[in-house]
């Protein structure tokens, strides 16, 4: 069934919670790894009760980032729980954690403790700001990282305050880089047999995601303006409001597309105007050109403009809301919106993995697990017998899904 999945046979122990770590391990799970999520028996990953959007008692944050994984509820603070974890770690290829710096060592589950038993282990730690430094006491959540990274300063309306990017860039970026670290570590281990410890943090990941913007600064030392939907180095390159109140984005990156735009708008006068001949000219006269185009776009509804611009080969797009995006014709064609049966919620709608291997998209095989859904199965695989597992469960060191009731906003005790 998983013939197309490249990470089949790779086992990852997931000590992570909230967003960056689970995003990392979800990608590994989507690529076929057996990801075993270790959670606190009482309440599990704190993202099970995070955010404001819930499907019954399950938070959208948890549901979105934990499919294709198995859940083991195990108390690592108790010696018996730690001993069971060591059994799992002996057979694992990688561990991912985003506990507070120092916490994994305090629990005895850091790499030095595990590598004695399993030297090939690849261990990836994700923190907010690194182990120390001036922000160590700050909450490392998404808008704080965006604010500190420089990304927020270059996002927002031209004369308005900085704006938060509407997507969780720090968590996503750190998650993707952490997955790369796991995979690179495993490739390296295949070559020389040795595992590794890799540390990365959300702030550096968000700065790294600046990419070309950062290189521009490192070359010219100039801060960059906020320009709403526009870009400091290209013009016209922004969203225009149409007669129906919807926006259409056009991105003219070169003179060829400028010619196509002028032809599509039936404005030979603009094309002939030497003041707009090159991108550099158009950037200098951005404001004036934008006003001119604003008036033009206000004349017709967005779908009419899009039809004209698409036909002419001008790079353009509707500015969709999230729900419009889910029904966009290309998104529908790509079949990335998918459904999975959830044990308590029924049908859960989510987005599948974005890549295809030999034409086949990695499937969403399993719903996000209930807390402790796989405790017994996983502990059995690690060699514990039913009596040992029974003792762990009855003493509260481990827990199984059926015995745990966690409600929204409340924690079972």
């Amino acid at each position: 069934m998983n013939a197309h999945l490249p990470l089949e046979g790779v086992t990852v122990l997931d000590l992570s919670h909230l967003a960056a770590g689970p995003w990392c391990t979800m990608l590994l799970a989507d690529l076929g790894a057996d990801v075993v999520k270790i959670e606190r028996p009482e309440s599990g990953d704190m993202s099970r009760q995070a955010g404001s959007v819930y499907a019954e008692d399950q938070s959208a944050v948890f549901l979105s980032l934990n499919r294709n994984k198995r859940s083991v509820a195990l108390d690592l603070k108790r010696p018996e729980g730690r001993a069971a974890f060591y059994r799992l770690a002996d057979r694992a290829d990688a561990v991912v954690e985003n506990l507070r710096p120092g916490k994994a060592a305090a629990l005895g589950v850091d790499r030095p403790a595990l590598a004695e038993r399993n030297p090939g282990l690849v261990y990836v730690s994700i923190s907010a700001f690194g182990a120390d430094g001036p922000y160590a006491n700050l909450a490392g959540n998404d808008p704080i990282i965006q604010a500190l990274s420089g990304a927020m300063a270059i996002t927002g309306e031209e004369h308005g305050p900085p704006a938060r990017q509407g997507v969780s860039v720090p968590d996503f970026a750190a998650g993707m880089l952490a997955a790369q670290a796991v995979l690179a570590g495993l490739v390296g281990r295949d070559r020389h047999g040795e595992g590794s410890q890799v540390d990365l943090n959300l702030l550096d990941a968000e700065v790294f995601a600046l990419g070309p913007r950062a290189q521009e600064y490192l070359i010219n030392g100039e801060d960059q303006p906020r320009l709403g939907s526009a870009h400091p180095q290209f013009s016209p390159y922004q969203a225009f409001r149409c007669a129906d109140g919807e926006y259409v984005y056009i991105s003219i990156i070169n003179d060829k597309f400028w010619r196509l735009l002028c032809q599509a708008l039936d404005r030979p006068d603009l094309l002939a105007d030497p003041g707009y001949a090159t991108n550099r000219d158009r950037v200098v006269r951005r404001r004036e050109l934008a006003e001119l185009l604003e008036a033009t776009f206000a004349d017709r509804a967005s779908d009419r403009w899009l039809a004209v611009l698409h036909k002419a080969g001008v790079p353009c797009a509707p500015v969709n809301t999230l729900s419009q995006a889910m029904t966009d014709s290309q998104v529908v064609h790509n079949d990335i919106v998918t459904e999975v049966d959830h044990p308590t919620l029924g049908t859960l709608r989510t987005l599948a993995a974005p890549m295809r291997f030999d034409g086949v998209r990695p499937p969403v095989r399993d719903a996000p697990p209930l807390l402790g859904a796989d405790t017994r199965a996983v502990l059995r695989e690690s060699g514990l017998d039913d009596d040992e597992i029974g003792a762990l469960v009855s003493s509260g060191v481990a827990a199984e899904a059926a015995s745990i009731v966690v409600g929204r906003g409340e924690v079972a005790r």
Partner: protein
Amino acid sequence: MTGPLAGVRVLDLTHFVAGPWCTQTLADLGADVVKVEPPGRGEIGRSIGAVYSGAESAVFLSCNRGKRAVALDLKRPTGQRIVQAMARDVDVVVHNFRPGTVDRLGVGPVVLRRANPGLIHCAISAFGNDGPAAARPANDPVIQAISGAMHESGRAAGAPVRMGVSLPDFAAAALAAGSIMAALLRRRRTGQGCVIDLNLLDAQLYAQVDRMTGAGEAPEAEPAHEPGVRGSYVCAAGDALWLECDDGELAGRALGISAGTARGLRDHLALTCRDAALRAFEAAGVTAAPVQDLSDVLPGPPTRTVRVAHPIVGDLNQLRTPFDADPPWPPATIPPPLLGEHTEAVLRELRADNPTDPALCPAPHNPRQEQL
């Protein structure tokens, strides 16, 4: 000391941002990446944008460290045959041509895998290989617009706002690099190569999965009743801060004002020095952070950047791929290459490997002048 991908050979046919960023990551992790570009002006990324150092654009410089560059005309049969020969003994080919182009150029997966069945062939497109938008041109903001990210970023402002980070490019690059490494792992076990394809739109949506998962209808933004106080504020001298707090009264009290509304805070903070405001918030247990400019963040701690010696630009400071590994993974320090800088060296290596290959004979005397 080498990176974990040492010994992995990558043939890089990419241009602009997403593709080159992917292969730069592989280079940073130790892979030998050979980039093939059209003679003349090279790939489009070399001459895009408005910030240059020497004759090289910031866009190009940001995504091409650690690679060697070969100038070959893929529109001509000789160029195609040489790339086909190069593809015989590499592990990975990456390209981001528009769908269909790669087959027309004779370097599609069917042709290349016939000679090298273990090859991992990765294609990055804007929208996917087919579908209503597949043939359309696209770049970062087009994907930001379609995906809903631009609308989400602009909700406070009313009009759409472009995310400062080119997330579609980053997402596609990161996911392509991850998929390639996963495929490399499988190949070591099974010998099996594969064709990977992904696109910027799907990659961007994966970055929004936390906002687009739910049991019923797509979760739309909550209706804005009263504007909350959580958000960014511009202080005196134009410095900004982010207030991570939903309790307006608490935030107001921290500043010694009675009005705990967004408007009251905005008016007060506009006249307040940012450092004083941050200190007041901290003293009151209210979470807030400075909205830092690029100049506050870069070059930043020495570990955040890497310095490479560029033959024309001189010392070039670049963002480092942010892994701290133990044992260490030294980042690539080969500077972003000049167009065709390694044509001769790479072709010579190829001839040594395939001395009788007809595609490589007669040997060009000076590939840069001949512009194959």
